[in-house]
């Protein structure tokens, strides 16, 4: 079954008071995952909430993308006994989750992951979790410092691909229902919603685009594809890269993982899959020590090509959704947006 069955968009509205009440009810009746403050350090991340008062409504975005609920940093696929092949226990993936507050860039990223994980090998671990989730996303009313979604067509407001989208309209949110799953949720809680109200999503988009130091994606695509980028750019990034992997591990569209068997301290045998990434030298090193993607410049060039050319060719959408997380986490001060602009800028200032 496809993860998202799109429907013709149905419009409605909800007052902010009613939204609070609705989320409060959902949090009691279902598992609700929403932006919430962590303990002590008070960072905002997607966390299970058991009451609407725990939800943070005034937030930009989380540092860890919501992909972690479908494709976890570390997840057990199954446990097993090494001596008997009948003792395999597959981890239950059927917990129904409702998400609130996912940003358009991350909804777009999940759309790309959906395409990736059902491409050739159908990945049940990912897809079954996606099948029992429904996402209420919230369009952005302003761009953050590191964001550039308008250049890659993933925000600040979505035109399709969402379950339910909320757009801030002062005292109310405009509500758009865009999928079967979204419609089911909407119908279950229909009493909370009101008549459609007017918001001009197109205008919001144009306004955001004007304020963003963006780029022309087509031009970036052409220049990367025709290999017109000065190699000094890759050398500069390679020199800065400290191999922490965070720009990829926390990228909402990165989908790479490694599979390992782990024996826990109390003796259970687990087959795990864990986030992995192409900036780790061991990721592409072969037995015998040879590595086809070495030196580091090659790894870096490959990442830009993959996200800005290959995924556009394959999925018809950019592999970068403009969330800006990779800029926030870099200990080498590599700025992905600035580098894309250098790629776009015909190489003279590279």
């Amino acid at each position, binding site marked *: 079954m496809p993860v998202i069955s799109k429907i013709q968009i149905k419009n409605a509205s909800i007052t902010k008071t009613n939204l609070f009440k609705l989320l409060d009810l959902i949090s009691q009746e279902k598992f609700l*995952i929403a932006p919430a403050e962590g*303990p002590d*350090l008070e960072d905002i*991340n997607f966390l299970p909430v058991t009451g609407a008062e725990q939800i943070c409504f005034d937030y930009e975005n989380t540092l860890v993308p919501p992909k972690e609920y479908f494709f976890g940093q570390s997840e057990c696929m199954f446990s097993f006994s090494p001596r008997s092949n009948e003792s395999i226990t597959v981890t239950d993936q059927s917990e129904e989750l409702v998400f609130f507050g996912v940003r358009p860039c991350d909804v777009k990223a999940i759309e790309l992951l959906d395409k990736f994980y059902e491409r050739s090998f159908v990945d049940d671990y990912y897809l079954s979790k996606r099948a029992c989730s429904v996402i209420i996303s919230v369009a952005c009313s302003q761009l953050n410092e590191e964001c550039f979604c308008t250049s890659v067509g993933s925000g600040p407001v979505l035109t399709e691909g969402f379950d339910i989208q909320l757009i801030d309209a002062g005292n109310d949110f405009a509500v758009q229902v865009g999928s079967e799953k979204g419609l089911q949720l909407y119908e279950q809680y229909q009493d909370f919603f009101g008549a459609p109200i007017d918001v001009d999503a197109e205008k919001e988009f144009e306004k955001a685009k004007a304020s963003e130091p963006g780029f022309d994606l087509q031009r970036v695509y052409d220049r990367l594809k025709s290999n017109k980028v000065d190699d000094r750019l890759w050398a500069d990034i390679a020199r800065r890269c400290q191999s*922490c992997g965070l720009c990829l*591990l926390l990228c909402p569209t990165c989908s790479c993982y490694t599979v390992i068997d782990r024996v826990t301290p109390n*003796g259970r045998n687990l087959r795990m899959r864990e986030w992995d990434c192409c900036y780790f030298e061991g990721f592409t090193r072969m037995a015998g020590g040879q590595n086809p993607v070495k030196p580091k410049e090659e790894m870096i060039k490959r990442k830009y090509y993959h996200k800005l050319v290959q995924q556009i060719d394959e999925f018809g959408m950019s592999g970068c959704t403009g969330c800006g997380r990779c800029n*926030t986490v870099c*200990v080498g*001060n590599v700025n992905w947006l600035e580098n894309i602009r250098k790629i776009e800028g015909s190489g003279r200032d590279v």
Partner: protein
Amino acid sequence: MNLKHVATTCPYCGAGCGFYLKVKEGELAGVIPSKNHPVSQGRLCIKGITSWQSVIGADRIKKPLVKKNGEFKETSWDKALDLVAEKLTAVREKHGPDSLGVWGSARCTNELNYLAQKLARAVLGTNNVDHCARTCHSPTVAGLVRSFGSGAMTNSIDELKDSACIFAVGSNAPEAHPLIGWRIITAKDKGARIIVCDPRKTDMAQYADFHIQHYPGTDIALLNCLMNVIISEGLEDKEYVRTRTEGFEELKKAVAKYTPEYTEPVVGVSSRMLAKAARLYATTKPASIIYTLGITEHTVGTENVMSVANLAMLTGNVGIESGGVNPLRGQNNVQGACDMAALPNVYPGYQKVDDPQIQQKFEKAWDVKLSPKPGLTLTDQLIQAREGNIKGLYIIGEDPLTSDPNITEVRKALESLEFLVVHEIYMTPTAKMADVVLPGASFAEKTGTFTNSERRVQLINKAIEPICSSRGDWEIVCDVATRMGYPFEYADTAGVMDEIASLTPIYGGISHDRIRKVGLQWPCLDKSHPGTKYLHKDKFSRGLGKFHAIEHRPPAEVPDEQYPFILSTGRIRFHYNVGTMSRRTHLLDREHPFMFVEVNTADGERLSIRDMDDCTVSTRRGQLTVKARVSDRVKQGVLWMPFHFVEAPANLLTNDAFCPIARTGEYKACAARLEKAK
């Protein structure tokens, strides 16, 4: 969905990054970076993001182990603790309190270290308490106390990004302290000038405007030369020198002979570059010096530290924002373990054991008679064990059989003991030699505090139940003390911190509740004190800063015909110290799974050793056969090895010659031979 985030502090280096442990169904499932944390600011290194994996290995020690007929048998806590108490009591009665030693741990909490030194002093009755700072930054504490009056990083980590000049000597921050490396890269991006002094072309050196590639063990000659140029060209901060320091004339006299021309052959760096670097450092303010073990791990370690302090004071760079002398501490809580007095000569907060007033204060607080005699360092405890004078050791979270220089001698010392008890989370070579092994709790399994390199006291919170049957290791120390007739009664570690605060002026205002959201930097004198961002503003802790006149002395062992290379050791990005945790972390061990020696290309050619060839490195103490990494990263005539690999421990080779003041071993320079493996 049973999922929570628990805020904590990274268990690896001294930068002290903050993050959340992700706990799913009661088990660790990942690390979530924190944007709000003042050090990490949303970032982490590869060790930090994978740190949760390091403590869930299948081979965690699960139950107390007692050795019978050379083999370990699992036993109950009660039996193991009774045995520890009984044996320690027996050794004390037979040989006296000073035949015992306790090693605290830079890997463990402040609360544990406080209790460990209290166990030694108040229960066993000896000041023989120390910890692994002895193998790293003890010269920093000794040297900076002599120069400034207190031995810690003078400034805060985040100030580095606003320095106009960064002078790094014997420090490879991007690999060893990645979040400090980030500040250096940021400073460089903002236009700061970078001077790196290191025998290797380290990752740090690639950001340098000047890379001074001097020989290992020639730091004093190098620093004296820079000061010679500064003074002879009149570039010193005369007003600062006059009003805030003493001993300038002696310094001037001492550095007079170290002209660039005189120094060039000693350090192996051109006189032109030495003069240029001196001018750049002296004329670019604020300038921050950072250093690590390239300075301290020498027989002249303490004097190296004082030379660094000389240079900073000469140019008026101490006591100002984004300046200073900044020793980057290598372990998560090595600052705290020093603060808590897991040291033989002081009580918590560097209060001297041989000061009668201080002794009285602690006798009153602990209600017991205390020894006024400073104890033995761990270096000397091992020497005295070989001599037959130390009979029992209680080692917490440390593996001297991998981490101390010349481990053949360390083995002899441990073999001569009547009783050895070790707290560990995994079986290490040292734990294997113990009579009793007590399973420790990792950073994810307990609540307490770590103090980072910038003196910031920060919380770690219990995220999961202690794995297997281990309990919080602070409780183990309490149990031992109580069984020996001195009840340690604390409800929790917050209670231990309250006692620490009541006796330690620099921690006077610290409590777990106060540091829940963001840590406090000591000195923090009382409950309303906001903590201290940088030290020595307007006045040094000791009053005037003191210049010391110091002469260059070569390492204890210098190359000769038989051993023509200088061998130095250090860390790589993907591993941490003796590898107990990083080698058990899948991604880290995959990034770098094997031991190696760095060889200069010209030396490789001469000896017909190619990259990845097997080769044998030998010193007067032992030999190892490892892979050669041939490149221009090391200077000709120099070899370099990491020390993370227990299967090929570099410290089989290193020299157990020690700094006479701080008693730290000379890990950074000894004479070695290199041959192609047969």
